Each structure stands twice: as structure tokens, then as C-alpha cells.
């Protein structure tokens, strides 16, 4: 796998503890991105979300999909992108500490300022979640 380095902090406005991407492994500008999120038992959220049986929250998977999708909007003249719509979200299995979440997002339709992405998250090549994610560009004042 050709892993590439993209400085996430210059492309996304998010930071610890809410930057939910560890690495970008494939990137085709404006078309498709594949990112990795390594889920650790040290995640802040796992201390309070089902602490007796650690499960990475599904909404965090959606957020990781949105952040991955946001990378494809980087370069647009804007103040960032905001999650506008989530459709057809399905969670096929739980994600737990030790899992390596691979998030793939592809741009399906663009009508600026709205961008529609088809996203999926897999663990060991098994589908964990999928959703249609819509982001809106925040216009530069």
C-alpha cells in the first residue's frame, strides 16, 4: 500500500481530541480519499461511552467519514466544511479498541457550496459502516 503524508492540521480545522483521522493512505484530489483511524483504548470517549464494554461510538465513525470527506474539499476558498446531511447510514458491526478503521470517501456529486460523498468504513476488509455524507462549504467572509 502506498501510504502518503498529508499534513492533516493544515487541511482540517480539527485537533486533538476530535481529529479522528490518523493517516491518509490514498488521495485523489477532489475524487477519493482513504484514511486510517486506529482505535485505541486510550480514546477519551471510551472512558465514558460503554466503559464496561468498550465500543467506538457510531457517531464518531460518521464524524471520521465527514473529516475524511472534508479532505477532498481542501483547497476550496472557504472557511471549512460543515456536516449538512447524513443519509442511509448503516452500522454493520461494532468497532472496538485495537481495530484499524479504514475510511474511504468518494465525491458523488458537487453543487457548490454542497458536496455529497459516499463513504464507508471497514475493519479487516469487513464493512463496519456506510453513509452518504453531505458537507457545505462555509464561505470566506
Amino acid at each position, binding site marked *: 500500500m502506498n501510504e502518503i503524508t498529508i499534513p492533516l492540521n493544515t487541511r482540517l480545522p480539527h485537533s486533538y481530541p476530535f481529529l479522528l483521522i490518523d493517516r491518509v493512505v490514498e488521495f485523489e484530489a477532489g475524487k477519493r480519499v482513504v484514511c486510517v483511524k486506529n482505535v485505541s483504548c486510550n480514546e477519551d470517549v471510551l472512558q465514558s461511552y460503554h466503559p464496561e464494554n468498550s465500543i467506538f461510538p457510531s457517531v464518531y465513525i460518521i464524524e471520521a467519514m465527514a473529516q475524511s470527506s472534508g479532505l477532498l474539499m481542501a483547497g476550496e476558498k472557504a472557511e471549512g466544511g460543515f456536516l449538512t*446531511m447524513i*443519509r442511509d447510514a448503516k452500522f454493520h458491526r461494532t468497532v472496538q479498541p485495537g481495530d484499524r478503521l479504514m475510511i474511504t470517501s468518494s465525491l*458523488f*456529486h458537487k*453543487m*457548490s457550496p*454542497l458536496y455529497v460523498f459516499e463513504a464507508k468504513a471497514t475493519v479487516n476488509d469487513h464493512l463496519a459502516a456506510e453513509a*452518504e455524507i*453531505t458537507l457545505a462549504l462555509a464561505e470566506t467572509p
Partner: protein
Amino acid sequence: MQDTLDTLRTLFITKLKLKISPEEIKEETPIFGAEGLDLDSIDILELIVGIKKEFGVEIADRKIAEKVFITIGSIVQYIESNR
């Protein structure tokens, strides 16, 4: 033409969760305004994505969308001439 209209009616009701029957969506029904379906820009984007998936017809930019999303009939006409 009728097939396209019927599919579009289903698309409107399922995608936008409209609380009306398919028969209430007529060719002359306006897309915007209280006298019509009163849709907003997010609704239109959902329909554009639905039309692309269902009919393989792309509405690529805002100017085209403004011409297409006037009435149900104008959408049917666009789909019929671009599929």
C-alpha cells in the same frame, strides 16, 4: 413519460418524506412556494442525487437546476431529454 413521472413521484415521497399521496404530485405542481411543495436547497440536492442514482441523469450546476426545478413536469422533461 408516465414511468418517469411515477418514479419521480416515488423519489419525492421517499427521499423527502412528503406526507402526501403520489397522485397529489401532478405535472403542474410547483417545486417552490407554499402553493407547491415548498422545498428548500437541501431538498433539491437530495433530489439531484436521487435523480442521478435512479435515472443516471446529472444536473451538474446551479444554473441548470434553476431551470429544471420549476414544476414536476419540467423535471420529467429534463430527465426524458437527457437520459
